[in-house]
């Protein structure tokens, strides 16, 4: 299952709830304000180890946090996002 999170973990509960409920072998893609969950040294950094986490590169760049991304979080572009959606067995948005 691919999980999509689009909100900041500091503002809304979607990232926390997603990481709590996602299977350990699932992938979580951070888009829009969700990319802030990938910040190195933040209060939620510990959650990043609960599943495979990637972040959308264009949303990371827009927010100026390319140099602040935690180790282990890979960046993907929209083509990579599409591949993640079509790979695996389903997709769920944590809107």
């Amino acid at each position, binding site marked *: *299952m691919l999980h999509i999170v689009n909100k900041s973990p500091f503002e809304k*509960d*979607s990232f926390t*709830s997603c990481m*709590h*409920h*996602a*299977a350990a072998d*699932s992938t979580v893609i951070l888009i829009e304000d969700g990319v802030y969950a990938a910040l190195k040294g933040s209060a939620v950094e510990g959650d990043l180890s609960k599943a495979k986490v990637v972040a959308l590169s264009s949303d990371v760049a827009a927010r100026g946090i390319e140099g602040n991304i935690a180790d282990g979080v890979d960046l993907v572009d929209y083509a990579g996002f599409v591949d993640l959606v079509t790979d695996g*067995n*389903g*997709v*769920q*948005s*944590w*809107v």
Partner: protein
Amino acid sequence: MAGEIKQFLYVNRKAPYGTVYALESLEVVLIGAAFDQDVRLLFMDDGVFQIKKDQNTEASGLKNFSPTYNALGDYDVNKIYVSKESLDERGLTQDDLMPLVYEDEDDDWAEKSSIKIVSADEIRDLMEGSDVVLSF
């Protein structure tokens, strides 16, 4: 594709009234019930508030759509899952929820509860076992 039965999961994570998602999600569920699919509803996080009993919108001027949840059983929507952790965090128990029921045609139309209280692990399995996840 005709004849294929998919596992639909409606994930309801938002409170009613403050935003329209709960109401318009329910409209999707009712329309969707006309399609021959396997439908499950999950109420988690603030979504558990959608089926809180005793909703009364008179003084607010809002439309009270909570009675419609009672009709779900008639639409053969009777697999309703509620997160135990979400209830706990909000100081609620199943007694705070509307007693949503259906009549079981395989059991002489006995009235049964549609609600099942589930753990985080069971929610994970529900999600992983779904073909289509509609999130509201």
